[in-house]
Structures are given as structure tokens and as C-alpha cells.
């Protein structure tokens, strides 16, 4: 089994991303960040209920992988930190915000909420409220893609906490056994809620665990769009040419709490230090991409300003759309219980 250590992009010069695509990714990552910040604000205005899991710091993982997929055709599953994945699949910010506000115009008609965003027409098969939940489902989706003789791939995102759930290993074993086209993306943001990797597993080499199920994999820097893109490109090539699964452990960090519960009151200080967060913030994937674009003269200051304005406008528009959208009609309570 091939195992490689974390690969740092050589001088940030991967070269495999066209400038136009880089700019697109930058815009998407900025949209995700601004969207999450606004959602946080709206949560505190009681416009959004339930739990809230922000993606701040992990934007490169949604942008660098989903941008390379064939949509529709390829299928994406993830857990409850899912706003970014929906936006990366092309689900309009309006439909995401409306879902978060429980409106009829939301991507799940207001029935799903933050943890259950979905957009099957764009290949997004949904967020999942259960830590290891999407992995057995990905086994089935991958099975269906192979059964129908497609060359499509199922991409399944999940966190380091999921690697300690039994169902994840049952499913990975079967994906390895049946040789299914599944790309596992382990978003290792170092903490399962408040429990660090060191405090939750006897074997922190996650790639080794994938290898144990007959699945090749590697570790990559999840804070760099280049590294993410490059690793995903290799992985997707492997899957599309061999038909077999691949596992990517993406080292990353969330800049905010696990959820609203440890964010609000800086509850995260019980399990990690402000110094650690400051260290990781220096590797902010959006900032480093911006620096790269400036250094290479790929985007003018004016263009940056325009993108910033556009993104803010898009988020603002999604909020006014959602706020002016109707709630689901009461007589729809029993709709969609069955197909």
C-alpha cells in the first residue's frame, strides 16, 4: 500500500491550477467564510435555530476538491459541517440561507436545517447529523455508481471523530473489499468536538487505518488549496483509472468552536489554547491564497475589492431572500414522509 507523508507544496508552486480557476476558488472560499460569519450573526438574532457548525479555516477542503468533480454525476456526502459543501456544489446561497432560516424556499424546503442541506441535482447527496453516518451511505452510493458502470466517484467527507466509530470501519472494509469508486476525505481538524486526536485513538496514523481495509491513501496539508487540489487530483485519477477507492487525510483546523455551544462563550478554551489558534490562523487558507495571487500579480487590488464586494452582496442577498421567504405551509407537515 502506498503511504506518503504530508506533502507540502513546493514553494506553493504546484502549477496544476489555471489562474482563472484559482480566482474562482478564492471567491468561493471567501464566500464560504463570509457566509459562515453572517450565519453566526443571524443565529444570535434568533433567525436561525438548532445547532450551528462553522467551517472557518477548512475552506480549502470544499473548494479544492469539489471544483474537480464532474457534477452532476459524481456524488458528494458529508457530515453536519456542511454549508461549505453545498455552496461548493453550486447550491445558491439563497437556498442554503433559506434552509437555515427554516423557509419553504430552502434547499430541503425547510425540513432539514443546517445539518441536512441537500441538492441531488447538483450531486450533493446531503449533510448528515451523525458523526460517522455518511460513510456507510457512501459505500452504497459507490456501489450504485459501479453497478451502473459509470466512471463517477462518490466523495465522502467526515471528521477525525468518525474514525473511532464502528460503522465507518465496516463500510471502509466493504469499500476496500468490493473495490468501489469512493474518495474518503478525512477532515482532520484535530478535535472531535472537544476531544483531541491524541485523547481519542490508540493509532493516530489514519492512513494506516485505511490501508488496513485495503484502501490506498496519503496525508496532505488541508490548509493549502494547492496541496488539497494536488492530492485530490492524484486521488481522483487513481479512482477513475483503477475503479478503486482512495483515502486522503487532510490536516486542518477550525478557527471557531465545534458548534454554537463552545463558540459563544469561548468554550473552546477548555480544550485548546489561544496560542494554538493563533499559530493555525497564520496558515489561514484564504489569506495564503490571497498572498499568492498578489505575489504573482494574478489579481489587482481593485479586482480583490470587487470580489469582496460581490461576495458580501451575495450573502446579503441570501439573507434578504431568506427573510422574505415564507415558512413552509403547516399543511406540509406530513408531506415527504413517504415517496
Amino acid at each position, binding site marked *: 500500500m502506498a503511504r506518503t507523508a504530508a506533502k507540502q507544496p513546493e514553494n506553493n508552486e504546484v502549477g496544476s491550477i489555471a489562474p482563472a480557476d484559482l480566482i474562482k476558488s478564492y471567491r468561493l472560499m471567501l464566500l464560504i467564510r463570509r457566509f459562515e460569519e453572517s450565519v453566526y450573526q443571524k443565529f444570535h438574532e434568533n433567525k436561525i435555530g438548532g445547532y450551528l457548525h462553522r467551517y472557518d479555516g477548512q475552506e480549502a477542503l470544499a473548494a479544492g476538491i469539489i471544483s474537480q468533480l464532474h457534477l452532476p454525476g459524481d456524488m458528494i456526502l458529508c457530515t453536519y459541517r456542511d454549508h461549505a459543501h453545498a455552496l461548493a456544489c453550486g447550491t445558491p446561497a439563497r437556498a442554503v440561507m433559506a434552509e437555515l432560516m427554516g423557509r419553504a424556499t430552502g434547499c430541503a424546503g425547510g425540513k432539514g436545517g443546517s445539518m441536512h442541506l441537500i441538492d441531488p441535482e447538483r450531486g450533493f447527496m446531503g449533510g448528515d447529523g451523525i458523526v460517522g453516518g455518511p460513510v456507510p451511505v457512501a459505500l*452504497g452510493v459507490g456501489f450504485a455508481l459501479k453497478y451502473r458502470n459509470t466512471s463517477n466517484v462518490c466523495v465522502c467527507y467526515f471528521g477525525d471523530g468518525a474514525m473511532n466509530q464502528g460503522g465507518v470501519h465496516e*463500510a471502509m472494509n466493504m469499500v476496500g473489499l468490493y473495490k468501489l469508486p469512493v474518495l474518503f476525505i478525512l477532515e482532520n481538524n484535530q478535535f472531535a468536538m472537544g476531544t483531541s486526536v491524541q485523547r481519542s485513538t490508540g493509532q493516530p496514523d489514519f492512513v494506516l487505518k485505511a490501508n488496513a481495509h485495503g484502501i490506498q491513501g496519503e496525508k496532505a496539508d488541508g490548509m493549502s488549496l494547492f496541496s488539497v487540489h494536488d492530492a485530490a487530483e492524484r486521488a481522483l485519477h487513481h479512482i477513475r483509472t483503477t475503479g478503486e477507492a482512495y483515502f486522503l487525510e487532510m490536516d486542518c483546523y477550525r478557527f471557531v468552536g465545534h458548534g454554537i455551544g463552545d463558540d459563544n462563550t469561548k468554550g473552546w478554551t477548555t480544550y485548546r489554547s489561544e496560542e494554538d489558534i493563533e499559530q493555525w490562523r497564520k496558515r489561514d487558507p484564504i489569506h495564503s491564497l490571497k498572498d499568492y495571487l498578489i505575489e504573482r500579480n494574478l489579481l489587482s487590488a481593485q479586482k480583490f475589492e470587487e470580489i469582496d464586494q460581490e461576495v458580501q452582496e451575495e450573502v446579503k442577498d441570501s439573507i434578504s431572500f431568506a427573510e422574505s421567504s415564507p415558512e413552509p405551509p403547516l399543511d406540509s407537515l406530513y408531506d*415527504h414522509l413517504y*415517496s
Partner: protein
Amino acid sequence: MATMRYLQAVRLAMTEEMERDPNVFLCGEEVGQYQGTYRVTEGLLQKFGAQRVVDTPISEIGIAGLATGAAMAGLRPVAEFMTWSFALEAMDQLVNHAAKITYMSGGRIHCPVVFRGPAGVGTQLSAQHSQSLESWYAHTPGFKVVLPYTPSDARGLLKSAIRDDSPVIFMEHAGLYGTSGEVEDDPNFTIPFGQAAIRRAGKHCTLVSYSRGVQLCMRAADRLAEEGVECEVIDLRTLVPLDIDTVAASVSRTHHAVVVQEEWKNVSMGSEIAARIYENAFDELDAPVERVAGADVPMPYAKNLERAAIPTDIDVAAAVKRTLA
């Protein structure tokens, strides 16, 4: 009409639906090379090949996820649990995924999956292998729950289950696998969900049951007929949807009701059916609804204790006499 055993009827339904629709496939433990733990899937691997008859490791979460995800992506999986007791391993995939995805997605994802396998109590299999848990699934919104009694129903209802666009829990009774009955010749014969069958007409008391409980009711009705008591036996066939209209109409003729089940009594299907009778036909009742159920204990191994824990036709007949007294 051909006469066949219940397990052959289950196999026939799968065979016919696999021939009809290439999106239908089977998966489960020992369904292929081993030819099925109870021989229900015998010959299917040879007929349809390994792509459509998929042997799995002993991984119930994996099996349930395989079936749920494949259904979400457009296939029509039939997943076998070696027994329904083992499905307990897979509860998160069943309850939190298969049952909910359509609703959670606002109807944008369909999940046409059948989970099937043997259920029921008896034969000294003891606590972990001998139990009936149908009310757990009936309790969960999003599932349709089917428990056939006759070979014809096993085939007609399973074909409907495979064609249904929603997740279906299909519980066969291991104790009925060897029973025989007539099965229709029409390869497109199906039985719609939510239509109870009146297995025997009678005017004194309504017996309501499903699966092997119907057998107890029929035997009790035979016994009681010798004493001049005529029982009407209703086989619900599906617990969700529940045909309460047929039950209420019968109770309005007989004015007495006994609900019979093999599963535990506490918070069970019988509790629900009795409550629905009160809601729908209270004024028609001349006596309280009687319930006959399994003893509320983990199934004991010793033969005499096991016998005491499982309801019999004698228990049913005694309940009828109590309600008529």
C-alpha cells in the same frame, strides 16, 4: 394456482422482481454462495450472478448503509438480515438514515429499499435470537412495516415492497417458512399495503393479529367453533399502513375484540391496535379489548419456560372467553 412453501414464495417474489427490473439486487450475509441461511435465496446467485446477489461480511451497519446509499443513488436493493435480531447492530443506518432521508430532504431524495429477513420467536434460540421487534419499526415514521402470514401474501407483499419507492421493513416468520399454501400464477400479482385480510368470518368476537399470530387465532377459532363461538380473524398484513377501518368494521359487528401478537406486551403493536379500536369503535364494544402477547422477559432457554413465555392458541381461546363472559 401452484402450491408452494412460504420460503419459496419469498424467493419467487425476489426472482420475479429481479427479472423485471435490473436495478433490483440482493445483499446480505450468506445470501449467495452459501445459498441462504434458511435457503430463501437458494439458486439466485447461479441465476443472477455475483453482481446482483452480493455476499457481505458480517457487518450489519455496512449492509444497511450499502442498501440505503444504493437506494438513494437510484437502485432498488433488497437487503437481508440473517435474522431481525442482528439488525439491532444497524439501528442508526435504519432509523436515522433510511427512514428519514426522504423527509429530511424535503422529498428530493427517494430511498426505495427493502430490509427483509426472518423474525419471530421459538425453537429454544433463547434471548438474543428469539424476539419480535416489529413495533420498534412501526414506531418510526418513514418506514412501511410488512409481516406476511401466508405464502401468497409473502410473495404479493414482497413484490409490492420491492416496487415501493419508500423504505420497507419486511419481516418473515422463521416458523412459517415451511408452511404451504396456494400462490397465484400471474407473475404481476401484487398485494397493496394497508389492506387487511379477513381470514375467517364470525359474529361473536374479532381476533386481530399478523404473521404467525394469525395461526394462533385460526386454531383458537377452530376450538371455539366446536363450542358454538364464532370468531372473525383479521390478518393485518401491514402494520404501517394500518388498516384500522377493516378492524373497526368487524368490531362493530362482533362487539368484542382480542389482539394477538408474539412480541412483548409492553408498549407494543397490541397497545396501538387496542388504542385505535377504542378511538374508532369505542361505542361498539361490549367489553374491554383483550390482549394476548409474549411475556415481558428476555426469551428463556429452558423448554418449559420458553413455552410459558410464548402465547398459544389456548391463551387466545381463553381471552375470547374472558371478553365474552
